[in-house]
């Protein structure tokens, strides 16, 4: 490992209207190392990445590349120098094929004409290297699952052949199996001397892959160069949040055996993704759905919610059968869905936070159709405070929030509505450790107040720690249904992967 820094950053400052996203960041990356960035939601990690990759211009500070001061005025300049980035918000172009996306901006071409066969071939090779030979280079990226889109983003970054690869929460949408493949690729790269900046909210991952750690808090470096394997978890959490957290998962109360069934799903099937799904959730119960990415869990939730039309089967809430394929009916029956893709399915990005929160419960703030905005703001402010949305302020436009904070806004919407049934698809994706435990507390508290909760998560630990009962989904079928305390992580992983060739 060379001592000379490939990239070093000093006193970096970036302002947005009303917000100082970065207010003095220092750190350096050496060739061949995996440098992890840690920090709470809104700490400035993504902003830092964007500055380093030329997507944002810094207001102050100095960036040195191989010892020389540089200013990456635009992404092309950064790419030319050998910096490749995978952004948190997966900036792919729906409508273009996988291969087109991989080579967008640095197309393989002869006098302007694209070499499509070449691009396809190299894309296939890159995808195979990332453990996903099944993604066809000709598919429309917009039709891939988020996980597959993440893989395409990685293929894109690899195709740039950079010396510094920056990854902003690449594992958030991947399942454990895929994370393992990703780590394999990272090790391969670092062995060739490529430096990697890795961002994740999962401390276990950082221990596994990281060499050094830099912690950001409120746009400032609070610690840099910590040895990833040795540093204590409590120390990291302390640095990030300023407080001590010992137990992430809240205490489970045993579900009252006399509690009534609230959600009752029988024989649910759609045209091709899943079938024979039976699911019963009692009042006060949290049911977790584990499974591989692409196993059809999101589709199951969306179908229960009426956002997709079921081909067969019934959904009952409190004993009343719901009409198929109507979200309105489901919502009126007391259901709420926290969708998987917050940007495209969850948020009104250009609207204020409070409007995003109250959108599903507007009628409770309205008299004769006229809204009481004051009440809306007050209630929203309470919720955002509980969830620690940063920066505070319910009048902020959601687009300006960091990824994790956006997720909390979606969650707040359904907390506000006081549902009978809450369906949560990856509720803590991109949420930092501190806020995560708060969200767990909230889910638990909701359940204890009699709500039936269904949680889909690719994080097996989360499913086991949070749920009373665990269902394992494999290729569109429920292959296991039992209490959470009668099963452990390795058993779940076995079930999940049975017959899977990985």
């Amino acid at each position, binding site marked *: 490992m060379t001592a000379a820094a490939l990239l070093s950053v000093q006193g970096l400052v970036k302002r947005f209207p009303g917000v100082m996203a970065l207010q003095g960041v220092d750190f350096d990356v050496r060739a061949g190392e995996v440098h992890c960035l840690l920090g709470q939601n809104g700490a400035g990690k993504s902003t830092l990445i964007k500055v380093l990759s030329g997507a944002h211009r810094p207001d102050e500070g100095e960036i040195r590349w191989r010892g020389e001061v540089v200013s990456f005025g635009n992404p092309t300049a950064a790419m030319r120098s050998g910096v490749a980035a995978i952004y948190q918000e997966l900036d792919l172009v729906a409508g273009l094929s996988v291969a087109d996306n991989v080579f967008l901006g640095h197309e393989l071409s002869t006098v302007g004409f694209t070499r499509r066969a070449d691009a396809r071939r190299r894309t296939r090779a890159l995808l195979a290297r990332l453990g996903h030979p099944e993604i066809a280079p000709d598919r429309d990226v917009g039709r891939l699952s988020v996980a597959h889109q993440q893989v395409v983003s990685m293929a894109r970054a690899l195709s740039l052949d950079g010396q510094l690869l920056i990854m902003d929460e690449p594992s958030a949408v991947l399942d454990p199996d895929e994370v393992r493949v990703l780590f394999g690729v990272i090790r391969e790269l670092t062995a060739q001397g490529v430096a990697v900046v890795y961002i994740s909210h999962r401390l276990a991952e950082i221990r596994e892959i990281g060499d050094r750690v830099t912690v950001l808090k409120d746009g400032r470096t609070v610690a840099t160069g910590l040895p990833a394997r040795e540093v204590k978890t409590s120390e990291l959490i302390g640095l990030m949040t300023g407080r001590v957290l010992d137990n992430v998962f809240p205490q489970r109360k045993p579900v009252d055996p006399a509690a009534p069934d609230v959600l009752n799903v029988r024989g649910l099937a759609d045209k091709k993704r899943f079938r024979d799904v039976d699911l019963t959730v009692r009042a006060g119960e949290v049911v977790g759905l584990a499974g591989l990415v692409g196993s059809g869990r999101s589709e199951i939730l969306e179908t229960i919610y009426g956002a997709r039309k079921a081909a067969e089967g019934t959904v009952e809430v409190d004993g009343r059968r719901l009409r198929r394929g109507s979200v309105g009916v489901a919502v009126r029956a007391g259901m709420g869905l926290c969708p998987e893709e917050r940007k495209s399915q969850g*948020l009104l*990005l250009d*609207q204020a936070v409070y409007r995003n929160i109250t*959108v599903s419960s*507007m009628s409770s703030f309205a008299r004769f159709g*006229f809204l009481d905005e*004051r009440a809306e703001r007050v209630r929203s402010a309470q919720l955002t405070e509980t969830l620690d949305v940063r920066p505070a302020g319910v009048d902020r*436009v959601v687009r300006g929030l960091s990824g994790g904070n956006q997720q909390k806004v979606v969650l707040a919407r359904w907390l506000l509505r006081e549902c009978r049934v809450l369906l949560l698809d990856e509720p803590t994706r991109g949420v930092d450790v501190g806020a995560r435990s708060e969200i767990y507390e909230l889910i638990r508290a909701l359940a204890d107040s009699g709500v039936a909760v269904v949680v889909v998560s690719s994080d097996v630990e989360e499913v086991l720690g949070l749920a009373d009962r665990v269902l394992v989904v494999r290729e569109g079928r429920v292959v296991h249904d039992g209490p959470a305390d009668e099963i452990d992580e390795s058993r779940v992983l076995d079930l999940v992967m049975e017959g899977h060739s990985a």
Partner: protein
Amino acid sequence: MSEDTAAVAAPQSTPVAKESSVAALLASPAGRNTGLVVALVLLCLGGVVTAGDRFADVDNVLTILRLAAVIGVVSVGMTFVITGGGIDLSVGAIVALSSVWATTLATQGIANDTHWIVIVFTALLVGGACGLVNGMLIAYGRVVAFIATLASLAAARGLAEIISNRKTQIVNVPGFAAFFDASVLGVPVLVVIFAVVAVAGWVLLNRTTFGRRTFAVGGNPEAARLAGIDVRRHTVLLYALLGLCCGLAAAMLIARTTTGSATHGGLYELDAIAAVVIGGTLLSGGRGTIAGTVFGVLIFTTLSNVFTLNNLSISAQAVAKGAIIVVAVLLQQRLARRSGA
């Protein structure tokens, strides 16, 4: 961004002032629309300098407002549709069809026997029905709004021609013109109607669940659907609302010209969309401002008034108009950016 979001987002300072909805009503459009106000003021200055008293005359101002009234009503409706992520090219044709239907001999016969309000109702009914058809085609038939309303444009104008046999139909119902030609405290009824529609539109868009849903549907229809909003029904309502506005505009136009004709409302679609977009409503949906639209309409009507007062040739008018539009938009953007929105 809706007017009030911007207004309260800017300074986090005075929560007391925020609460007063009257203050908000006054402060927000002005804050948001500084550029438009400046453009309009400059235009008026231009008018005063070049045409002096003839421009600043009360009668002239009322003339401008009267001219703005008809297209203004349509533009307010258009603001809803565009904010909701749609577009409607058929507004002019709907105005024509409504005006013709409301002035057929049959309608006039009934109105003569009962009350002239029959004519107004007929126009509203026809307009609303056309809007409903547009909305259904778009929401349930899933025809792209641009194409669906282009088709309606052709069909409605054709129908208007068939019904009127391409003749201008003259209105002879007593009381009808008298009502619309009257003034309330010196303000012509037409202008009063426009003002009422604009204020009602502002309230509907910014203070009701309907308006909030409109922003949601236009901003991210998938998210709105998953949040439990019936996006398709709402879309139908938006087009029906615009249809009603067209019907009302037709009634106003009948009163103003004493006629119904298949040629009424020519190119209203462009005028209305231009006023809405120059006002700051996003063509892609999710952001809309009624105040901006009203300023947009006023800018365009004042412009042609100033041109006429100056006896400018039509060609020169066109060139100047192009330049002024661009300047107004640039002004609006620079000022809006500076005010931190």
